[in-house]
């Protein structure tokens, strides 16, 4: 009697295990290594080496400007700064591995800048430019130092001419970014092979790191680049000075770039991206491939931001309804990439740390 039951049990089991046609979730057989190699070799590596080359140029133009603060040198430096800030957006999603150990995002782009603290640092002449999670260094500090320290260009140049502390501060900020970014590139060289071989879907696997970092970057774009400055969470009370690149007035371009950067991170450079993984696993939402939904949503988010009149700090005051609808296009994506994608790929959102047991 008992044996019979057990036999039946085995039989049922066998039946399920042989069922090859089922399209149940988590049932994908994709060599994720291809995705890792593509995103690093074909996307991060060229972007990062370009970023560091641009940073080198920034460094040289900074030296020229410090040695001779005049209008031409300031303009050259500013232009290069804008190039660098744009290029940075492609690096920002890589906040895992060396990005995490070096705290690359916080070191290079902790915005909004705390300019009163920054000014206090300059007057004091002593500060730790590399302090963890500070809001007075990185690209946001340069944004302020090149555009925000005085009301017009002559006054800005005067400050550099008359006060060595400004020169020193600018020098330290730029050098620090160069140092951090150089170590970042070096550490990736050694981390690469670990990353490629860390397959599977466990917490801490490369796929999980990628998807979590992708989401963190996107949430940051949504929250810090638009929601908070444009008053989406404060009943319409706006904070334009909290925009990324507020002083240089490039907030809108940076927002678009960061969205494009997220999309490229999702699609990879060649034919092996997260989108291909979703397609391979045949993941659909309401009958449409999820990868297609996500790419369309990226497109409408980018388009709606592009349609906002520049500069963004004025748009958020004057064109509130357009800003709200652009924001909702950006916000709509979160469900697809944070809820649907990890669920269908069976990846845990691991930046939620469970401070107890589960059952």
């Amino acid at each position: 009697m008992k044996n019979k039951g057990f036999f039946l049990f085995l039989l049922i089991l066998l039946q399920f295990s042989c069922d090859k046609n089922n399209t149940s979730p988590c049932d994908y057989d994709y060599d994720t290594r291809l995705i890792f190699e593509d995103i690093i070799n074909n996307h991060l590596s060229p972007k990062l080496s370009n970023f560091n080359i641009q940073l080198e140029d920034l460094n040289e133009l900074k030296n020229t400007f410090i040695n001779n603060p005049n209008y031409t040198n300031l303009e050259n430096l500013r232009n290069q700064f804008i190039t660098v800030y744009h290029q940075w957006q492609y690096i920002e999603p890589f906040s895992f591995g060396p990005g995490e150990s070096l705290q690359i995002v916080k070191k290079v782009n902790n915005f909004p800048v705390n300019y009163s603290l920054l000014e206090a640092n300059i007057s004091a002449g002593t500060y730790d430019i590399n302090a963890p999670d500070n809001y007075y260094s990185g690209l946001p500090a340069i944004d302020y130092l090149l555009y925000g320290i005085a009301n017009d260009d002559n006054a800005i140049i005067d400050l550099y001419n008359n006060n060595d502390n400004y020169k020193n501060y600018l020098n330290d900020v730029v050098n620090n970014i160069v140092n951090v970014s150089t170590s970042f590139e070096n550490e990736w060289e050694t981390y690469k092979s670990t990353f490629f071989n860390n397959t599977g879907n466990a917490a801490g696997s490369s796929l999980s790191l990628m998807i979590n970092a992708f989401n963190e970057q996107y949430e940051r774009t949504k929250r810090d680049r638009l929601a908070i400055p444009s008053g989406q969470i404060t009943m319409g009370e706006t904070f334009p000075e909290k925009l990324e690149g507020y002083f240089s007035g490039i907030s809108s371009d940076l927002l678009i770039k960061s969205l494009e950067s997220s999309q490229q991170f999702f699609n990879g450079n060649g034919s092996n991206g997260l989108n291909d993984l979703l397609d391979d696993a045949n993941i659909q939402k309401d009958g449409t491939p999820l990868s297609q939904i996500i790419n369309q949503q990226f497109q409408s988010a980018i388009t709606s931001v592009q349609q906002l009149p520049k500069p963004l700090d004025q748009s958020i005051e004057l064109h509130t309804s357009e800003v709200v609808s652009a924001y909702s296009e950006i916000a709509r994506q979160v469900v697809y990439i944070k809820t649907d994608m990890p669920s269908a790929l069976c990846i845990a959102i691991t930046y939620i740390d469970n401070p107890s047991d589960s059952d």
Partner: protein
Amino acid sequence: MQLSFKNINFDELIKKFLYQEKDIYPLITFRITFGLLMCIAALRTMWNGWIEKLYVEPQYFFKFYGFEWVQVLSLENMYLLYIIIAISAFFVAIGFFYRISIFLFFLSFTYVELIDATNYLNHYYLVILLSFLMIFIPAHQYFSIDNYIFKNKKTIIPAWCIHIIIAQLCMVYFFAGFAKLHSDWLFNAMPLAIWLPEKSNIIPFTSFLFEQKWFAFFFSWCGAFYDLTIWVFLLIKKTRPIAYIFVIIFHLMTWALFNIGYFPLIMITSTLIFFSSNWHQKMYYYFINNKKIEIVSPFLFNKNIQYFIGIYLMIQILLPFRHLIYGGNVLWHEQGYRFSWRVMLVEKNAKATFYIEDESSGQKSEVLNSKYLTDFQEKQMSIQADFILQFAQIIAKDYQSKYNIKKPKVTADVYVALNGRTSKKLIDSNINLLDLKDGFKKKDWILKFQD
């Protein structure tokens, strides 16, 4: 022999099940292991820094309906409370002022669990139930410090003292197994198909197994079979030793694979109570060699006890079925989900976006959940409707203190992805959550689950 209900003498059955004289020894093992485990568990919570994470970091706490009055204490007092839990558990183990200790343990442990419903776990609930039962059970009458203080050594107890705990454990297993009899678990191997591949590096040389789909099915079916039947095999004398070996294997395996704390240890130690008193007796006779002391406390044999036990068992049997009143998929709406031994049934990925609007001015705002909740709280809130209501109130209060809002309306877009599916809307996103009251009534603003 003919079997019919007419022939069963219920009085006789009750007499045997509840009032038969039994040796106390299985209870002694139970008391000692339970007390020690709980003591270690409380120390572990403090050691891991969970008190800070669970009771200091959060600004707000989610409450169980009817227990909104339970407040968090200051950091020092939370530590004090946990020290009381640890010490009283230890006193229970050694049988020192047992009745006071177990009562104190029950109160303090329950209080802690009521502070934040976010942290609800079935095994905490089990600890509450077991310690509640132990208040009434004289588990200190042998092999205890109390024996020396009060000279109260007795070795005979009525059967209900042991049987009520056995019944409780049987119900845990049975309902845990019964809850697994649904299509996600049986036919999709969900959520084990998500969890097992993640665990492939834990047991050496087995990673290839963990990535196989059939392996998740194997685990799912074995798990359901185990939960549904293990208590029967533990009850039958002949199969008991083998069943217990399976208890050890099963729980140690789940302990290795999943982050389930001390639950496996509770089950491994407390199921020893299924073994005969002779078996337990041998252990204690090794330590203290003395005769049986066959004095019994008459009030333990009081007839009214059967009504108390009857009511307790009825509640415990009915509670896990209360989701039937709500209809729909309990894994989705989670009404009647807690206190029902539904363990390891769901993997949910959710995103809840709240909006607050002043209906008089039309001014609208999205809410940054992380300003109010820890990541863990946010995750739990996004999938449980009663928390969603509580959070709506929290938001409204905060925004009203900062902005001039005459007619507040709080709505939410809540998307939940259940067991590897893509997400669906959980609740009606037009409804003003401030208009709703929590309660046992069916929450008809939760949308039906569409597969």
